[in-house]
């Protein structure tokens, strides 16, 4: 099989798979190179499944809104796999006056960008979700937010892209990129060389090392966050949840289990002992998440946790992703540093990048997310 394609994508996560799918739909030949053994091995399979707009920075909000309006509603049908998408709202919960102030600020900013989000009081929040504890005194409510199954969605994009002829290679770790006559062309792995007219680097934190080989840097760092999942419980609610204090976030899946993510507060300095393909948990994070959840949902105290896991959030310097073309390296497209927001906007990102590569233009203005936006403070 040929090692040449219109587009070579570095990274088989949800961004790489989605972009590959939309590119192949537009008739482009695509090769996806995944360094690990598994498709969707990084954040794509380790996140809490949120598909939301509320709480997002105005610079990425348009992508989030576009995806929820245009892509998510038909995604399962389009990909032929149930991605378990629910567009039944997001509650960001508050227990104190200070929390409500934070939520009000977030709400005001989102409303200014045209998002349907509003504050709800204690009574209304209990109407929306009767399982909440009485400690909850208010929330911000975005009825068009939701959640989906990130593992299945990633694999559904992979499946469909593969059916459309995209070539996928796993265990193919990219070492460097190489410019040929002023344009990025070659993608060099441990064993092979691939060539593309365009190269998309969507390899999470590893993007930084790969981009360095063509002299581009994305300022980001990694934070090791954790999630947990319970056994299946009777159906309780369909909203996505978060809190003003960010002590946990999550939802009940279609399967009945609850997936919650959270932190212990030590994430910036957590140690990872580097077990292959699986960042390590700490002994104190999951208990902390449990305590956080029970403050809001006392009735979940008997739900059994069956599994916890950890995953890296690739956090950019300013908290929004780095997306788009690199002027000085023609043909190079970056999509990384998603700062924990990548899953929800992945369909929009994939579709827009495919449009960018195919038509040279995008429906959503990606310029606020350019790679060269980082400047010294003075």
């Amino acid at each position, binding site marked *: 099989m040929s090692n040449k394609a219109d587009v070579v994508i570095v990274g088989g996560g949800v961004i790489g798979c989605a972009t590959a799918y939309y590119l192949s739909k537009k008739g482009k030949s695509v090769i996806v190179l995944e360094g690990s053994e598994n498709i969707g091995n990084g954040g794509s399979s380790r996140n809490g499944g949120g598909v939301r707009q509320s709480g997002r920075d105005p610079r990425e909000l348009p992508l989030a809104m576009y995806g929820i309006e245009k892509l998510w509603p038909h995604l399962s049908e389009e990909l032929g796999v149930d991605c378990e998408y629910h567009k039944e709202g997001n509650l960001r919960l508050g227990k104190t006056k200070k929390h409500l102030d934070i939520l009000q600020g977030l709400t005001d900013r989102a409303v200014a960008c045209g998002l349907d989000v509003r504050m709800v009081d204690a009574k209304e929040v209990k109407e929306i979700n009767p399982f909440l504890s009485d400690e909850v005194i208010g929330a911000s409510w975005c009825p068009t937010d939701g959640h989906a199954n990130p593992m299945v969605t990633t694999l559904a994009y992979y499946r469909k892209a593969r059916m459309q002829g995209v070539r996928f290679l796993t265990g193919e770790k990219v070492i460097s990129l190489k410019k040929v006559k002023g344009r990025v062309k070659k993608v060099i792995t441990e064993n092979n060389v691939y060539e593309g007219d365009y190269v998309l680097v969507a390899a999470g934190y590893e993007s930084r090392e790969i981009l360095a080989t063509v002299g581009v840097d994305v300022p980001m760092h990694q934070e090791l966050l954790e999630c947990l999942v319970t056994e299946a419980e009777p159906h309780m609610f369909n909203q996505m949840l978060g809190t003003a204090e960010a002590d946990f976030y999550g939802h009940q899946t279609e399967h009945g289990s609850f997936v919650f993510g959270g932190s212990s507060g030590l994430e910036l300095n957590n*140690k990872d*002992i*580097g*077990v292959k393909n699986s960042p*390590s*948990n*700490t*002994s104190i994070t999951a*208990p902390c998440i449990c305590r956080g959840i029970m403050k809001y949902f006392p009735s979940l105290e008997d739900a059994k946790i069956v599994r916890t896991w950890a995953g890296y959030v690739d956090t950019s310097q300013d908290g929004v992703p780095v997306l788009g073309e690199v002027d000085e390296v023609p043909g190079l497209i970056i999509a990384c540093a998603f700062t924990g927001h990548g899953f929800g906007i992945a369909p929009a990102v994939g579709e827009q990048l495919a449009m960018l590569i195919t038509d040279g233009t995008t429906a959503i203005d990606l310029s606020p997310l350019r790679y060269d936006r980082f400047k010294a403070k003075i």
Partner: protein
Amino acid sequence: MKRYDLVIVGAGPSGLSAAIEAAKRGMEVIIFDENEKPGGQLFKQIHKFFGSKEHHAKIRGFKIGQELLKEANELGVEVVLNATVIGLYDDKEITVKIGDGINHYKGDAVIVATGAAENMVTFPGWTLPGVIGAGAAQTMMNLHGIKPGNKVLMLGSGNVGLVVSFQLMQAGCEVVALVDAAPRVGGYGVHAAKVARCGVPFYLSHTIKEVEGDEFVTGVTINQVDSSFIPIPDTEKHFDVDTVCMAVGLSPMSQLLKMAGCEMEDNPKRGGQVPIIDDYGRTSVPGIIAAGDVSGIEEASSAMIEGRMAGICAAEYLGYCTKEELEENLKILEDDLESLRQGMFAPKNRGKLIEKTEEGIDISTNLLEKGYISEKEIERYPGVTHKVGIHPVIECTQNIPCNPCQDACKKGCISIGANITNLPIVKTEGNCINCGMCVASCSGQAIFLVDEDTGDGSSTVTMPYEFIPLPEVGDKGFGLNRKGEKICEAEVVSVRAVKAFDHTNLLTIKVPKEYAMKARFFKALA
């Protein structure tokens, strides 16, 4: 957070053995076990163990467990039960569920001795209630006193399948068949023989086609398979059963080691996912050691030796013993382990067809294919000799590492020699006094005392008998042959149940003279 010199996960044979060796050398040791009773599998092993004295031979498993536990307690080892280890984190931190909370501990060294879990095979109906693991059956019977079912079909002819079949019968179940897809019995011939002579038919080269039942098991259909394990048409046999027991191997429960970052491999010879270890159980993570089935499926006797090795390694790792002491001890234990790993069932011989004993005698094909030795075959083994008067007949025909019979006889009738796997030889010059110690000492229940001609046209056969109710002198019934068929009338002439026999009762039956070498079990009149 409380820190110990050594934290051990699992209070089974290897965990307890490790704790003893470590505590002996002055280490502060704590063991966690998720069960309510310590001892792991030992406490459900009511049968006598094979091996030599060093391997606790002829002692029943649960007694070995009691001895280990007593020794650990005396050495100050803390054994915490109902304590589920839920994670092994970086820096050898262990979280344990105890009561209604989570406790954090650290060990300067950690020994993981979590054992193994039962494998399953699938066939239509395998998820029906009544399809259970052999280990589960053993737990129900021997720990909780619950009869798993009334009519049972056993799948698997390895030692677990054979031993549990026997125990099921001891618990009062009827074992309708013993089935294995392999063409030959996988476990010790002596275990097979004691099951077969109770009348259990063996179906080798057979597998379960389906288990029937709507809400629970009501029956099972088996069929024959060819050498590629493909079912042969029109070979179905049906049995009415309420229980199907699976003894199809074990998989190491090595998840904690994986979580701790130990290098792992999938090694089918060791039963599945196991840590990569050196000869003494040390993993790739310094101070984390694996012992027992978690590092490769064997049996309790070797698990105990591995545990001791692990305990001494932990001691040396933390400076509680010298390198010289370590090496000296490991050498002895290695030799011990090596002697257990001898004979035709040694790990290195797994899967091989062995046709001759080490002495050059043909292995009984009938034993391998049907579970019992034919009357023609039995005469060729050195344990089967003839003389006037009472003498032992040892139907031990495979080279296994076991020699208590030699020590049991003080009258020079039985000889194995220095090589523990030799077949026992019954010497005609020996002077048998009918003490019965050899019969009771044989873990394989393969020794009989026979007087081939008592002068009145009869003969007497003394056999081990571990069933209740125990027959009484004067009881009449039938002599059964090695296949479990009624072959003659028989009368109980002696019942011996003395302490030295350790619950192996000796039943002597009188049968017509011509059945002296044929009658091997007794069935009372209904």
